[in-house]
């Protein structure tokens, strides 16, 4: 009998255990996506080379405090590729400095980008890719079908959809990064398009889709039901048409929907505080979501700056934050708690006081719907594998799946 592998989502480079350092190189973007959490985007704040260099010098000087085996140098915006010349200079400097200092991150680093894909084929971006090919991960955001994508991802100036400008670059991207994945973010108006969007992305050749619902409190009456129906119908398509062999969609995971042990499974969900972000003004944040342009109702949560360094006291709450200290009893006792994610930045933004210790549960009914559809998916898939004599093979090759939320 022919062996069938089941495609699982990538668990992230170095299993997500690398230090993640983000440069917010610009707060500008060609698009004005409707769901974009960056409420304070602007054209003025672009990182200067001086600030970038000071940040790098400071970070590399702190080798003793940054013991993670590997590093992901992440570049975000706005749209990071708008600043490709600066990024190129930063990356050159990083490589030289890590080498000259004999830093333990030399040879264990990646440059990572999440781009809207619009100027992916530009000469400068392509030159950068050629130069750094072995240390790159680039994700292009495309939301699904043209209708779904253009519902949200519109040009700032014209208000027109950006689908065509992005999709023309997908073949080149997949040629260069055959395992490139895309992140899809679902908000209330996107729910009816989930199934067709995922299948459309598969049809473009994108094998890995990391898909999440937003953490903000945007959900309307009945959204959960509709969401569940979409996920079940997508499950039918993935299983009936055999996509599960080569394609992955992070909505379905065997690890979600189980109770969590209060002692053994008490870790925080996200890596804020273990990550580090720096903006154009040289201010350090526990993650980009704590920068002012990402926050609706709260003041920026800074942890230092390139001149004075990081205030370690301000990192302490992030490094001791656990599930129980921020969750309501209902979540602690929840029978389907595993996989129910949160974003520390959104928690802070939505909290009743200035704290990261109040978990936002706006996602609750959507997680419950996801768990039901997920149960359906695995029951159906296992039955099929069973009938086809594939189940044992599958159980043997099982891998952990990690949901990426930011």
């Amino acid at each position: 009998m022919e062996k069938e592998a089941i495609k699982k989502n990538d668990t992230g480079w170095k299993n997500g255990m690398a230090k993640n350092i983000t440069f917010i190189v610009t707060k500008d973007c060609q698009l004005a996506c409707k769901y974009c959490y960056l409420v304070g985007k602007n054209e003025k704040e672009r990182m200067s080379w001086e600030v970038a260099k000071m940040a790098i010098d400071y970070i590399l000087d702190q080798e003793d405090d940054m013991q993670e085996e590997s590093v992901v140098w992440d570049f975000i915006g706005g749209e990071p590729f708008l600043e490709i010349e600066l990024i190129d200079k930063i990356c050159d400097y990083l490589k030289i400095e890590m080498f000259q200092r004999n830093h333990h991150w030399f040879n264990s680093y990646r440059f990572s980008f999440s781009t809207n894909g619009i100027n992916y084929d530009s000469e400068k971006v392509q030159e950068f890719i050629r130069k750094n090919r072995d240390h790159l991960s680039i994700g292009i955001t495309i939301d699904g079908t043209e209708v779904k994508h253009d519902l949200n991802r519109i040009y700032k100036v014209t208000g027109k959809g950006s689908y065509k400008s992005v999709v023309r670059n997908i073949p080149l991207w997949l040629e260069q990064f055959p395992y490139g994945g895309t992140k899809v973010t679902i908000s209330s108006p996107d729910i009816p398009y989930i199934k067709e969007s995922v299948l459309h992305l598969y049809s473009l050749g994108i094998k890995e889709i990391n898909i999440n619902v937003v953490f903000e409190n945007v959900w309307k009456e009945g959204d959960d039901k509709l969401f569940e129906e979409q996920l079940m119908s997508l499950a039918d398509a993935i299983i009936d048409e055999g996509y599960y062999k080569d394609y992955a969609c992070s909505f379905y995971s065997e690890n979600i929907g189980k109770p969590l042990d209060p002692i053994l499974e008490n870790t925080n969900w996200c890596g804020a505080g273990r990550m580090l972000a720096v903006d154009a003004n040289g201010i350090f944040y526990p993650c980009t979501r704590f920068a002012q342009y990402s926050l609706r109702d709260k003041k920026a949560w800074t942890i230092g700056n390139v001149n004075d360094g990081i205030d370690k006291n301000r990192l302490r709450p992030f490094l001791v934050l656990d599930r129980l200290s921020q969750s309501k009893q209902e979540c602690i006792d929840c029978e389907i708690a595993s996989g129910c994610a949160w974003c520390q930045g959104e928690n802070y933004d939505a909290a009743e006081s200035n704290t990261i210790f109040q978990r936002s549960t706006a996602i609750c009914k959507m997680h419950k719907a996801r768990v039901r559809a997920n149960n359906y998916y695995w029951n159906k898939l296992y039955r099929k594998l069973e009938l086809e004599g594939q189940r044992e093979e599958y159980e043997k090759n099982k891998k952990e799946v990690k949901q990426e939320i930011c």
Partner: protein
Amino acid sequence: MLQYLIILLDDTSTSYCHYENPKKDAGLIPLNILKAGIRFGMVENLMIQFVYPDYELPGEYKEAIESIDHSKIVSSLCNDKSLADEADVIVFHDWSGISYAMTFPDKSYVLRTTKAKLFERYLFLKEFLSKVARLNIVITDIETFDDGDYEQYKLILHTLSENIEKMYVDGLAPQLNLLTDRIMLKEMNNCGAGDTNITLAPNGKFYICHAFYIENEDDCIGDVKRGLDIKNKQLYKLKYSPICSHCDAYQCKRCVWLNRKTTLEVNTPSHEQCVVAHLERNSSCELLKSIRKHGKFLPETEIQEIDYLDPFDKRKEW
């Protein structure tokens, strides 16, 4: 559980803790608010503590205050000298006061001091300790401690501990929060602001503590008319502090105001607060051993030797 209501009788009420009160203009609590505060304390079954300004209060205020069981916190510089006798806690803001003031053997005293002054003048404390029921030392700049300060503080605690040991041998039972509290305690006994106590300010609003009122009057947690509304009130409880709930420096103030100032979270202490409290804890452990050399003393109490000064450093073992 809420047990105490602290009422600030004036905007210039004395600081009795880590913060400074820079307010210079008198702003007496309106009598109706004072009475409403007292009523709140009565119906909620709270023990009331009044914090006095340095001038004498009008007669009707004294009357209102005496209408309820309470304790008084008064500055040593208060002009109403009759209060020196009535006060339950007398606060010194400087060291000259402590050398010359008339002391009462049955009263508790607070000495607010910077680390520099403490390091310079700690030898004065020996005599003072033998004359009073209890002395609480509050260091007003804990957040500025550095490695050199920790070393010096350790030596000072050692000297004070030797003094206290001698007093015990002489049959006295001095109480100095930094060294004797940990020996007596079996569980955490922290400041409790926002959990066991709240503060009523002269504007009729409640605050987590006096320091929160001074820092930002908008940062209130309710008022006498509508009652209390503490957002995320669980965060003031020990259980919701991941670091403190793994700690046995039971004497530590666990100052939620300093926590917020240094780490931005009321439930997360700074490294400096933890190290200072652990130096005290470890010196208390030494003191206990020294006293026991002279005979049986608190046989039930045990303070373990530990290899850290900041529980945060042990977080991987939690």
